[in-house]
């Protein structure tokens, strides 16, 4: 029987921030809150936001350097950042996060191109970023 649940907030019974959902194989469970993406953004090579979730803004820190300013901060700095760069033909694109200045409400991402010898040049690029981890 089809069913629809209408709610604004879902909270665990035993622990408010922990709800188990059954996996696709029907034999295991995974944690709902921890599996959800907490921040994502897609931007153009002008660093204008195309779409985003839980982001207040992007800060242009210079060529190839951008700060993700997080609306609802993460609980710690041990979150998982992933980024993918696109838009450069003929070059290998690279993206990484600067751990030295990373904070619960700030993820400093870098991007650029890498030539055949492994030399990297910072460059503005269209990119997508995501963050998984624990919210504050």
């Amino acid at each position, binding site marked *: 029987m089809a069913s*629809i649940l*209408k709610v*604004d907030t879902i909270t665990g019974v035993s622990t408010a921030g922990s709800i188990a959902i059954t*996996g696709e194989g029907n034999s295991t469970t*995974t944690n709902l809150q*921890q599996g959800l993406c907490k921040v994502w953004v897609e931007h153009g090579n002008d660093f204008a936001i195309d779409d985003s979730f839980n982001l207040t803004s992007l800060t242009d820190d210079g060529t190839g350097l951008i700060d993700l300013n997080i609306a609802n901060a993460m609980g710690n700095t041990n979150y998982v950042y*992933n980024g993918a760069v696109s838009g450069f033909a003929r070059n290998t694109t690279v*993206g990484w996060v600067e751990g030295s200045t990373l904070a619960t409400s700030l993820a400093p991402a870098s991007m650029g191109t890498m030539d055949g*010898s*492994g030399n990297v040049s910072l460059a503005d690029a269209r990119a997508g970023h995501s963050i998984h981890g624990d919210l504050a």
Partner: protein
Amino acid sequence: MASELRVNTLKDASGNNSIATSFVAGGSAKAWADTNATGTTVNDSLNLSSLTDAATGQQTFNFSTSFNNTSYCSLLTVRNNVNQIWIEDSNKATGSAQGRSFTGSSYQDAPQNALFAGDLA
């Protein structure tokens, strides 16, 4: 009191923003990990039983609950480095996956941020 809720669709209280529970289960990350450079410490994680320092620049993520198959999606980013990075296909299994960081001439240790999505067993 423990409880179980079985529904096909979630909506907000106004009846908007509908999402099927299949998207909630299928769209959630099933494992992730933030590690140190040498692959000896897991700073935070989901569904990870342990981390193995396989070799310089090579870290093996061992899942607590395995995936249903090896066709799960893997993402890898490193902190502070601009190395070539990838999930090693020859070492990808339902219960583990290995992230590698390479300078172009040799493997190099780097803090790894790994994310896995797909079907759990």
